[in-house]
């Protein structure tokens, strides 16, 4: 099977790689992460200029018609810089939901503004009791069209503090799951904003009779929400794979220069075995990433859901081994604030908890198998 990138993907990869090398070194990333906003607005405008915000959207609405593999290529490069800009929440999740469910008028208005860098969104689907299972959502939406009222709580909504609008998943009067557009400053929303362990931002939101507009014509869009989550799993897994590669390389290089008993510690066979295990996990996670990106791109919903779950499980497992081993082999400095290894491990840990942990997905896959 040929996994070589095409010319356009190759140039996209080069362009993103150059951005990370020239404009997004570790210190710069830390500065953005610790700023009041939590990311760089200048970078966001640059992303708009470079067309990255338009990548997965339909050409008709100002997008560039990219597929899951194109997004994977971009996210793999951006992941190397531990990106803190709200790309996943605005483009991969909320924008994607608008593209899948919105009316043509909503797409023209909202996607056009995302592509131009003028609009940031957050996707509010997860709840404390429903970190990944859409069927368990309890937030309610009553009414229809432009006069919907939202009530309930959402947990760990990524980048909600910087969002202009929220796309909220809620249970309808007819017990289906719909999506609703809510102004982020609407009356009735109370928010607890906080930094996440990996240097990002998230919020817990409470909705009390909040005015909302239904996204699209249907109020039964659970399948579309699942498709959005599948795309998000591929995006963050691409980040995870590139971080694991980076941690492996950093660990190999470090063990070649760190001496103990007058020899580089890379000479010790037991450490070589550890690094071989890291390498194998990286390769297995990469293979699963390619498999999932291709399967999701083929459009079979059942196969896509399963591929996304396999990917999330494998990446979670690999990330834990690679992250823990990298930190162990770096010794105490592996968890210092000054070295990026600890920050990469934190990001991998956060990725494992997003959209359902590896244990959740493994359990779900086993149950599906038993039921079949």
């Amino acid at each position: 099977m040929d996994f070589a990138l095409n010319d356009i993907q190759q140039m996209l990869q080069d362009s993103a790689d150059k951005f990370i090398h020239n404009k997004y070194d570790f210190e710069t990333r830390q500065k953005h992460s610790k700023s009041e906003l939590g990311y760089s607005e200048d970078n966001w405008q640059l992303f708009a200029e470079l067309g990255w915000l338009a990548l997965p959207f339909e050409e008709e609405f100002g997008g560039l018609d990219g597929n899951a593999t194109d997004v994977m290529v971009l996210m793999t490069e951006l992941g190397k810089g531990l990106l803190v800009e709200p790309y996943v929440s605005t483009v991969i999740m909320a924008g994607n939901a608008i593209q899948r469910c919105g009316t043509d008028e909503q797409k023209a208005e909202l996607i056009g503004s995302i592509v131009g860098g003028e609009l940031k969104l957050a996707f509010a689907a997860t709840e404390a009791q429903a970190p990944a299972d859409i069927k368990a959502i309890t937030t309610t939406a009553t009414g229809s069209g432009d006069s919907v009222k939202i009530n309930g709580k959402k947990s760990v909504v990524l980048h909600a503090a910087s969002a202009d609008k929220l796309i909220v998943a809620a249970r309808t009067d007819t017990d289906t799951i719909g999506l609703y557009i809510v102004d982020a400053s609407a009356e009735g929303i109370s928010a607890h904003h906080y930094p996440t362990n990996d240097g990002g931002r998230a919020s817990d939101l409470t909705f009390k009779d909040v005015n909302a507009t239904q996204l699209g014509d249907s109020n039964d869009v659970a399948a579309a929400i699942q498709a959005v989550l599948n795309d998000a799993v591929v995006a963050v897994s691409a980040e995870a794979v590139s971080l694991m590669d980076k941690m492996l390389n950093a660990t190999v290089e470090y063990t070649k220069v760190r001496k103990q008993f007058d020899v580089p510690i890379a000479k010790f066979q037991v450490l070589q075995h550890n690094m071989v295990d890291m390498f194998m996990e990286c390769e297995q996670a990469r293979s699963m990433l390619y498999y999932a990106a291709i399967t999701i791109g083929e459009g079979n919903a059942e196969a896509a859901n399963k591929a996304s779950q396999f990917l999330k499980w494998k990446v979670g497992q690999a990330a834990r081994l690679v992250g823990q081993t990298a930190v162990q082999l770096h010794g105490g400095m592996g968890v210092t604030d000054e070295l990026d290894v600890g920050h990469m491990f934190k990001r991998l840990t956060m990725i494992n908890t997003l959209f359902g942990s590896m244990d959740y997905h493994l359990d779900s896959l086993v149950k599906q198998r038993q039921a079949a």
Partner: protein
Amino acid sequence: MKVLVTVKRVIDYNVKIRVKPDGSDVDLTNVKMAINPFCEIAVEEAVRLKEQGIASEIVVVSIGPANAQEQLRTALALGADRAILVESEANTESLNVAKLLAKVVEQEQPSLVIMGKQAIDSDNNQTGQMLAALCDMPQATFASEVRIADDKVTVTREIDGGLQTLAMPLPAVVTTDLRLNEPRFAKLPNIMKAKRKPLETLTPETLGVSLSAHTRLVSVAPPAQRSAGVKVASVEELVDKLKNEAKVI
């Protein structure tokens, strides 16, 4: 005004170079390749001239293997209008490259040729000067500023201990220094458009140039490994080591 820009395919500057075990050359196996950074600055300068309405067409040219098309496509994505690849696997030493470029200049008749001052692989810093001589054009090397007005190009050059400004009639050859500009990132829509821009492939034979070797690569060696640092007990010992061992003071 037509601007011709040269682009060389080299190892990406972020890659750690490996030398072949027999020391015969640099190992290029599975190594990421990119546009030579000085050539990228040359492309950026041409694109800026076009954006200012001074240049009307930018032609990028590369001499190298078939996959140098990748670097030409990148230059097209950055804003060049069309590309020419002179496909040649061997003998791309400076004089041969200058001879091939001279033929391309003869065909294209550009008003300005912008080149990187040197390529980061061989560090020769020769081709621009040779091309200017072969084409009998004025040249300004190490440019840190380029201004064009009234069929004249004014170039500020970085020289030891200061700056020198030269004025030349067009057509002319300019080679770029590092501080001339900061190249842009390729925009995704332009990357897609680059695929449809024309890329012509020529050979040394079609240009009527026979390539002969004037130099022979004898060996390549990696830099000496940096030895570990030592702790000194006093300032006096440090000064003594700097004076007598390192001989830097």
